[in-house]
C-alpha cells in the first residue's frame, strides 16, 4: 500500500514537473506522436489490406490449373477437364476465360473475364468502378475494344459493379464468352485456366501431385499459395515504407536521446535539491521512469489514435499509393476497422520501451550526484 502511495506521489510530482516545461515537452510529444502515427499507419494499412484480400479470397476456388508451354502460361484444352474431374476427391471442374487488355487511349490495363453465371448478353459488358472512373463513363455508354487483328468492336455497358468489390474488381470487365474469343482470337475448345473444388482441403497437395503426373504440362496453384503471395507482396510494400520512414524514426531517436540525456542546469539543480531533502537515487530514477512513461505513452496513444482515424476513416492519403496501388486504377474502398493485439504490442515495444529505457539509463549518472552539491551551489 505504501509502495503504491509512493508511486502515486512520485507520478504526481512527475506530471507537475513535465507541465512546468510544457513548451519543450509538448513539442517532444508531438514529434514522437507523429513518428508513431507514420509507423502505425503503415502497419494498420498493411494489415487491413491483407485482411481485406484474405476475406475476398475466401470465395476463390480451392485450386487453379494452368497449362505451361515453354515455361509460359498458355491456353489449356477443355479435354483436360475430364481427366482432372475423374481424380478421386475432385468435386467439380470449371473452365475460365480471362485476360488483360491494354487501353492505349487511357494508358490503363483492364482485366477481361467471362462469367457464365451472370448470363451476360453478347455485345454487353459489366465494368468495375475503377474502369468507370477512369473512362468517365456512365452505365448507358459503350466502349470500343481493339481486337487481335486491329479492328474495333463496341460493347454496351450494362452496369457498373458494386464499389464494395473494388479491391478485386476495380479494373474488371465482365463479358460474354463469344465476345472474349472474338477480341483475343481464343480458339474454341480451349480456356485460360481451369478451377477446381475439392471435397477435403487436406487432399489438395495429393490431388495437385496427381494432376501433374497425369498432365505433365500443367501447373496447379493452390489458394493457400495465393494467400501467401498476397502476404508477401503487402509485407514487402509495408516493409519498404517502414524502411523509407526509418530515416524519420532515426532522427526522432537522436532528438529523444538528446532530450533524455542532456539534463539542463535547472534539472540538475532540481535533482540536487531532491537528493538534499531526502530522495534516494532510486526515487530519482523512478521519477525519470515515470517521466519517460508519461511522455512515450501519451505520444504512443495519440499516434495510434491518429493512425487509426487516418487509415480507417480517411482514405489513408499518405500511404495509399505505396501500399494499395497497382496499375493506374487505384481501388477505392473503405477498410474494415480492425486492431490486432500483435500490431499494437509490436508498436508499443518499438516505441514506448526504447524511449523509457533511453531516459532511465543516462539518468542514473545524474541521479547519483552527491546530495551536498545543493549545499555548495
Amino acid at each position, binding site marked *: 500500500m*505504501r509502495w503504491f502511495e509512493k508511486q502515486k506521489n*512520485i507520478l504526481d510530482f512527475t506530471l507537475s514537473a513535465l507541465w*512546468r516545461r510544457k513548451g519543450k515537452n509538448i513539442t517532444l510529444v508531438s514529434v514522437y506522436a507523429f513518428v508513431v502515427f507514420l509507423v502505425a499507419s503503415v502497419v494498420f494499412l498493411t494489415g487491413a489490406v491483407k485482411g481485406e484480400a484474405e476475406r475476398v479470397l475466401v470465395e476463390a476456388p480451392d485450386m487453379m490449373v494452368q497449362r505451361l508451354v515453354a515455361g509460359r502460361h498458355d491456353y489449356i484444352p477443355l479435354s483436360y477437364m475430364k481427366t482432372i474431374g475423374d481424380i478421386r476427391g475432385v468435386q467439380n471442374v470449371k473452365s475460365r476465360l480471362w485476360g488483360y487488355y491494354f487501353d492505349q487511349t487511357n494508358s490503363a490495363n483492364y482485366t477481361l473475364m467471362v462469367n457464365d453465371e451472370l448470363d451476360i448478353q453478347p455485345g454487353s459488358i459489366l465494368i468495375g468502378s475503377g474502369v468507370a472512373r477512369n473512362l468517365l463513363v456512365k452505365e448507358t455508354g459503350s466502349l470500343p475494344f481493339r481486337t487481335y487483328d486491329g479492328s474495333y468492336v463496341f460493347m454496351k455497358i450494362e452496369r457498373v459493379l458494386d464499389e464494395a468489390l473494388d479491391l478485386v474488381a476495380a479494373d474488371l470487365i465482365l463479358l460474354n464468352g463469344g465476345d472474349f474469343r472474338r477480341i483475343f482470337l481464343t480458339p474454341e475448345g480451349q480456356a485460360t485456366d481451369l478451377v477446381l473444388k475439392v471435397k477435403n482441403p487436406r487432399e489438395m497437395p495429393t490431388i495437385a501431385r496427381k494432376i501433374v503426373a497425369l498432365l505433365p504440362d500443367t501447373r496447379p496453384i493452390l489458394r493457400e499459395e495465393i494467400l501467401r503471395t498476397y502476404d508477401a507482396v503487402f509485407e514487402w510494400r509495408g516493409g519498404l515504407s517502414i524502411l523509407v520512414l526509418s530515416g524519420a524514426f532515426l532522427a526522432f531517436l537522436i532528438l529523444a536521446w538528446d532530450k533524455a540525456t542532456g539534463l539542463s542546469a535547472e534539472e540538475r539543480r532540481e535533482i540536487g535539491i531532491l537528493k*538534499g531533502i*531526502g*530522495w534516494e537515487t532510486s526515487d530519482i530514477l523512478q521519477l525519470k521512469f515515470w517521466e519517460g512513461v508519461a511522455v512515450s505513452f501519451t505520444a504512443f496513444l495519440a499516434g495510434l489514435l491518429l493512425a487509426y482515424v487516418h487509415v480507417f476513416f480517411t482514405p489513408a492519403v499518405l500511404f495509399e499509393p505505396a501500399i494499395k496501388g497497382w496499375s493506374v486504377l487505384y481501388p477505392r474502398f473503405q477498410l474494415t476497422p480492425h486492431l490486432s493485439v500483435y500490431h499494437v504490442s509490436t508498436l508499443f515495444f518499438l516505441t514506448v520501451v526504447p524511449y523509457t529505457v533511453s531516459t532511465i539509463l543516462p539518468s542514473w549518472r545524474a541521479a547519483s550526484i552527491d546530495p551536498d552539491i*545543493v*549545499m555548495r551551489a
Partner: protein
Amino acid sequence: MIQVRDVRKVFNTGRPNEFVAIDGVSLTIEAHRTTVLKGPSGSGKTTLLSLLGCMARPTSGRISLLEREITSLPERFLTDIRRRSFGFIFQQFNLIKGITALENVMVPAYPTGERYSSLKRRAMELLELFNVGAKAASKVEWLSGGEAQRVAIARALVNDPMVVIADEPTAHLDTRLSREFMEIMGTLKANGKTLIMASHDPIVHESSVVDGVVEMRDGRLV
C-alpha cells in the same frame, strides 16, 4: 546527540587541486540545543554541516548519531537517516520553481509513501503555522524573500525531524526578517528540536536562542 571524532574532508584527493575543507575536527552537538558554526567564507562551515546532516561522508574520522556510527553506512541507509532525522534550510532556499508553495513543502515526504491527502493536510498546517497559508497555491517564484524563507522552513519540518540544519539562513534577509527567522527558530527549539546553523551574521550568533557557538577557520575549530 551527534558526536564528531577527528573528522577530515578532502576534495579532489590525489589531484593537483586537492583541497582540505575539514581538518581533524572533533565536536559534540547536544540534543534540544542550538549550535552555531561561525567563521569567514571558506572556513569549512558548510562542509561540516553537510557531514553532520549525512549529505556527505568524511574522508576519515567517525560521526555518530544517537550513539550509532553512521559514516560507514551505505547510501540507502544514509538517505533514510537524512530524511527521518534532519530537516534542511538552505542558503538560497532551494525551492523548486514552477510548482506551488504547498507542493514544495510536500516534496520531501513523497518517497515515504504517506497518503497524499494526509500529507497535504500536514503541509498546509505547517504553512499556516508560519503565516504563509494564504500563499499555499502560489508558485514559489512569486513569493517575497521572507515568504520563501518560511516555505523553506515548513519544508524542512514536513518529515518531523529531530534536527534542523540551516546554512547561512539570514544571508538573503534584511534585519527585520532575520530577527523574525530567529524567533521561529526559538519556537522550534522550545518544541524540542535540535538546531545547527552556520552563519557569520551577528543577529544569529548573538541571539538568545543560541546555546553554543563553534568558531572555525581554515577547516579547523578555533
